[in-house]
């Protein structure tokens, strides 16, 4: 008995973690999946109802708006974060004085919650006393900046705040990547007459392919999950113009009491994330095994 215990101690120590994750992650996702096939309203019902909720979901205007917004947000969020992140990383890589201070400044938004920064951006972007007033007081009398309360433009204010929060993160990833390249490669290229621009464009950035891949995965996954920022900045408004899937899910579940429908939307989100993450984890693990 004691021998058995001793032999299996590592597995026994592992058991709580595996059990908790098995139950609270995989079990719960399966439960949500099951509920998405039922006609649950306020309380979950367990008779199967088929794929009706998915038809309802994809026939709902609000969900289509949410998906549309997600695509717009993800595309812009990705492009701006990666471009700004790369520019900052390359610039900081030029033996800059006070690099530490600048890096700290570029990255501090990551330490704050989206609720805190969303509150700040909401104040800055509000048309009566915010940026608009600042420019008018400076003499640009016809300056208007009312994106926050404009149905067509409100989604872009979320992009502004999101990029501001996360661009420094991409910078940190690329800076770590650039620093891990051996100096010899850059020196050799310079001896061959390549200028700095060519060194980065032709040699270093192509070497950063894994970092691009990582940034892509992380940013897409942040944007699919984005919830706090929208709550703090627009609550999905004006109207429903800035709804995104995560907000749709919680509203449908907890305000509209459509548990089955919200489970279906949660499963759609889960599948979107899985489609991005599983290939990523697979390739990471393969790279590790190859080492």
């Amino acid at each position: 008995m004691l021998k058995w215990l001793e032999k299996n101690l590592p597995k026994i120590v592992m058991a709580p973690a595996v059990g908790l994750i098995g139950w609270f992650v995989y079990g719960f996702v399966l439960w949500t999946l099951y509920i998405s096939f039922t006609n649950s309203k306020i309380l979950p019902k367990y008779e199967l109802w088929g794929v009706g909720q998915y038809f309802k979901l994809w026939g709902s205007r609000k969900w289509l708006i949410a998906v549309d917004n997600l695509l717009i947000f993800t595309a812009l969020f990705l492009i701006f974060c990666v471009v700004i992140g790369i520019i900052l990383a390359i610039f900081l890589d030029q033996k800059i004085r006070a690099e530490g201070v600048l890096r700290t400044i570029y990255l501090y938004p990551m330490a704050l919650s989206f609720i805190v920064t969303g509150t700040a951006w909401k104040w800055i972007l509000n048309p009566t006393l915010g940026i608009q007033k600042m420019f008018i007081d400076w003499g640009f009398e016809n300056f208007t900046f009312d994106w926050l309360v404009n149905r067509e433009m409100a989604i872009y204010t979320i992009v502004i705040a999101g990029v501001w929060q996360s661009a420094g993160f991409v910078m940190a990833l690329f800076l770590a990547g650039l620093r891990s390249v051996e100096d010899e490669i850059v020196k050799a290229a310079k001896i061959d007459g390549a200028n700095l621009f060519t060194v980065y464009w032709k040699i270093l950035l192509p070497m950063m392919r894994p970092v691009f891949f990582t940034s892509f995965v992380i940013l897409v996954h942040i944007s699919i999950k984005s919830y706090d920022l929208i709550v703090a900045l627009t609550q999905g408004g004006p109207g429903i113009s800035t709804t995104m899937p995560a907000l749709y899910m919680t509203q449908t579940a907890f305000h509209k009491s459509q548990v089955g429908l919200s489970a279906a939307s949660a499963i759609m989100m889960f599948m979107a994330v899985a489609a991005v993450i599983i290939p990523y984890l697979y390739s990471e693990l393969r790279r590790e095994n190859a080492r």
Partner: protein
Amino acid sequence: MQDKSQTSYKQLEMKSKYTNMFLRWFLYFALILFALYFIFPLYVMVVTSLKTMEEIRQGTLLTWPSGLNFESWAVAWGGRGYGAGDTFLRPYFWNSFKMVVPAVFFSTFIGAMTGYVLTKWRFKGDQWVFLFLLFGCFIPFQAILLPMARTLGVLGISNSIIGLVLVHTVYGIPFTTLFFRNYYISVPTELVKAARIDGAGFFKIFFKILLPISAPIIVVTVIWQFTQIWNDFLFGSTFSFGKAAPIQVALNNMVLSSTSVKEYNVDMASAIIAGIPTLIVYVLAGKYFIRGLTSGAVKG
């Protein structure tokens, strides 16, 4: 003839020196411009929180406050003292602490243990177990909100700090496991093997060999978990309301509560109060914060 070519070479050198200097200036100019862009919201928050509403209406976002007026801070922290309907952050701030400390402790401890087993007591299929845990880093929490709400109800701990501690501990395990596993994998296994031959057991090896060298990764993990849990809004707003809410939820309620007059100075002071603990940690231990951020990302 030779002279001429030499001077032109010198001219060329001078010219490239000037372009270089110009490029350097441009570089610093651009970097400072970006820094201003990143600082801008923080600056506006601080400045606004120190103004009176009158000053806010008269000046612009950037106007310097007339003095160090901490009244909005006092109101945000302790209220106005008129009883019912007076919302302020103090109790929620402590709620968050009561939630964060145990959740960080438990998730870090469990992560250290699993990371230790996965690297030093390897068994068949341990890679799959790791992957099984790792995937938990990425699941959109919307997919577990409904069953979690019911489970907390069944356990009788919905709308309580204990419930939130449980939630944050569980969903922190994938991250803490990742951190410790990636750290311990670089510790030579020979060390452990030698200790095993000497008769040291599972826990003795952990406490005598691995724990003493784990300080950096413990710091990284604790900072990561602290920041994540302190800043969480989704779980807090779904599983708690009223008096049991953590600070981010209280902040959001305070800002949204539509009294007749919007007090932006109090809003900004509240936002700063809610952000200050993580900001302090970031400034004091930025190196470890960044390490967590990049290793948490690069490897999952």
